[in-house]
């Protein structure tokens, strides 16, 4: 220590407050996001006075949860410079399977088969990305198509078996406890596991490491295919669980149930500061990103304007939010 202390000057401490704030925000990139979120909520309240109520609050959280869970899929894969374009399809598959298996073999079998299918897709993705070295964009796009096709074929066999959503999933999806959605009973532990897992486990470290420089991890003895297999299987599992929650929430096992969440889930991750080039990102940011998108959706639903203007405004606000965020944190 001693030598370098002499050789290099200590960090400068007469810096302006503004620079200091900028630096603080740069180190805690979630804070500006939360500020942006609160600003959007403020706009909403001004636009429709009285809307901010416990009921609204519960709803917003309820709809943000599945989005935030799928955003976890995107964030985790993006850390390794990947992406999961099959996540939404996997959620849909899992939702449809659980609703169609339950009347035949009961809820337990339904959940097991649904999650099994989800993990299977994940393993195929992991094999493609980690072993066959196919670009994740193509691999997951391909498996997404394949899973969609399989779902289409499957649904023809269960057209008249009826569908039933397990009661506990409905409780989780639609129930409330103390005004808050029961989905939090699933989501809070989930988020804690992801947040802590990324920071305090070897696997979490490796995700960042592989995204930063895969060659360097190889030098250090990491067999990256193992990491990819586990990662994509895990992500498949998360997508599957999201599907279970979502079908309990929407209570309509459609063949495209969760598909519209694909772009928003990727958007939530990148708004939350995850770099699609790998090595950088946090789940806290993705959660706030999901909340921002949900509030934005409400805002636009309630704005009376032509649909075209509504869609365009959605895009402009996303751009504005991220540009501001980049400016504030100087992140890239």
């Amino acid at each position, binding site marked *: 220590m001693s030598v370098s202390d002499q050789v290099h000057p200590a960090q400068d401490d007469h810096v302006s407050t503004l620079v200091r704030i900028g630096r603080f925000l740069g180190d805690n990139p979630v804070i500006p996001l939360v500020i942006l979120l609160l600003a959007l909520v403020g706009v909403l309240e001004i636009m429709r006075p009285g809307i901010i109520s416990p009921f609204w609050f519960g*709803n917003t959280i309820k709809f943000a949860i599945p989005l935030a869970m799928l955003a976890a899929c995107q964030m985790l894969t993006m850390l390794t410079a990947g992406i999961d374009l099959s996540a939404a399809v996997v959620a849909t598959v899992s939702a449809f399977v659980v609703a169609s298996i339950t009347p035949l073999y009961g809820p337990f079998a339904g959940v097991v088969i649904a999650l099994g299918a989800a993990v299977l897709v994940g393993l195929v993705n992991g094999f493609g990305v980690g072993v066959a070295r196919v670009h994740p964009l193509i691999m997951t796009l391909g498996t997404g198509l394949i899973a969609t096709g399989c779902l289409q074929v499957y649904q023809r066999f269960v057209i008249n078996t009826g569908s039933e959503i397990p009661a506990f999933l409905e409780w989780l999806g639609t129930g409330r406890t103390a005004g808050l959605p029961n989905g939090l009973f699933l989501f809070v532990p989930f988020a804690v596991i992801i947040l802590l897992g990324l920071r305090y486990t070897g696997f979490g470290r490796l995700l960042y490491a592989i995204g930063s420089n895969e060659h360097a991890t190889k030098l250090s003895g990491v067999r990256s295919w193992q990491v990819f297999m586990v990662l994509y299987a895990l992500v498949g599992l998360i997508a599957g669980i999201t599907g279970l929650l979502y079908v309990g929430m929407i*209570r309509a096992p*459609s063949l495209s149930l969760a598909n*519209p969440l694909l772009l928003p889930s990727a958007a939530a991750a990148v708004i939350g500061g995850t770099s699609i080039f790998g090595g950088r990102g946090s789940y806290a940011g993705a959660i706030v990103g999901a909340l921002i998108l949900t509030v934005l959706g409400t805002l636009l639903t309630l704005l009376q304007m032509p*649909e*075209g203007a509504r869609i365009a405004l959605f895009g402009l606000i996303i751009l504005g939010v991220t540009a501001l965020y980049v400016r504030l944190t100087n992140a890239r």
Partner: protein
Amino acid sequence: ADYTIGVSNTVQGNGWREQMICAMRAQAAVEGDVSGLIVAHRNTDSAGQLEDLNNLIEAGVDAIVLNPSNPEALNSAIDTAIEQGIVVVAVDAGVTAEGAYILSNNQEEYAYLGAKWLFEQVGGSGDIVYMRGIAGVSADTDRDNGFQRALAEFPDINVIHEVFTGWQQDQGKQQMFDFLATGIPFDGVWTSGIDNVIVDAFTESGAPLVPIVGADNAGFVQYLSEVDGLEGAAVTNPGSVGGAGIALAVDILNGEAPDSNLVLVDPVLWENTTDDGRATIAGAQNPNLDPEWPVSVTIPGWTDYSMEQIIACEGPGQ
């Protein structure tokens, strides 16, 4: 005879369209004259449907039954087909090409019927939530025309909120939750077929139910008879029109063309506010059916398959 029929459809993954395809398969299977059915069924746009139609022409089919994505965009391929002596039947929506047969659900009438019932139900005056489909798509535009026609007849009805569900269950539900959260009172909801999740949104949030208009999807029809306090009406919009299209194509191939090129299948409204209506609904209900499927699985006078056959969803030779 030994006909091969081609089918083209541009929306996949929605119960209504799946039923349409199954009806086509089932009808083709029961028609003795059909030996092959080639189905092009995927999510695409008009240009993609043109591609599919041209591929079907290349495959040498005798007739094409299509659910057109747009009335005008497909004319080049349809003209080619007709020139080559291929019978073209458009189902669900119309096409403008000369010489094509049209067996269409009357979308404008669909919207008009439901809207009129709703406006009467709320007493001719009040605030309505108008939940449409996908902006810029032909079927949505047709339905809007019907809705506006009904609206013009009821000057005291006010559309307080208009929103596009994208024909997605989750979006419709979320949008209804959002609107309920504003606390703005309203008197009725018109939906473009995303219906049972709207009822759920009311019951889950504890908001008092208002009259709701939906389609004859199995899930909504069930709600009409089961949900306490729900006043509602289902307007029929049978996906089985696809089966009727196959039947029509075979008739034409066999030289039994109808007098007019245009056959409109007019929708019917089932309300749960009258005894008659309740009886119809009870008869139509089918709790085992996929909740997104319309309950009107057959069109009497047109289709010949049984319930089992359409559910098996198998075409000729399968």
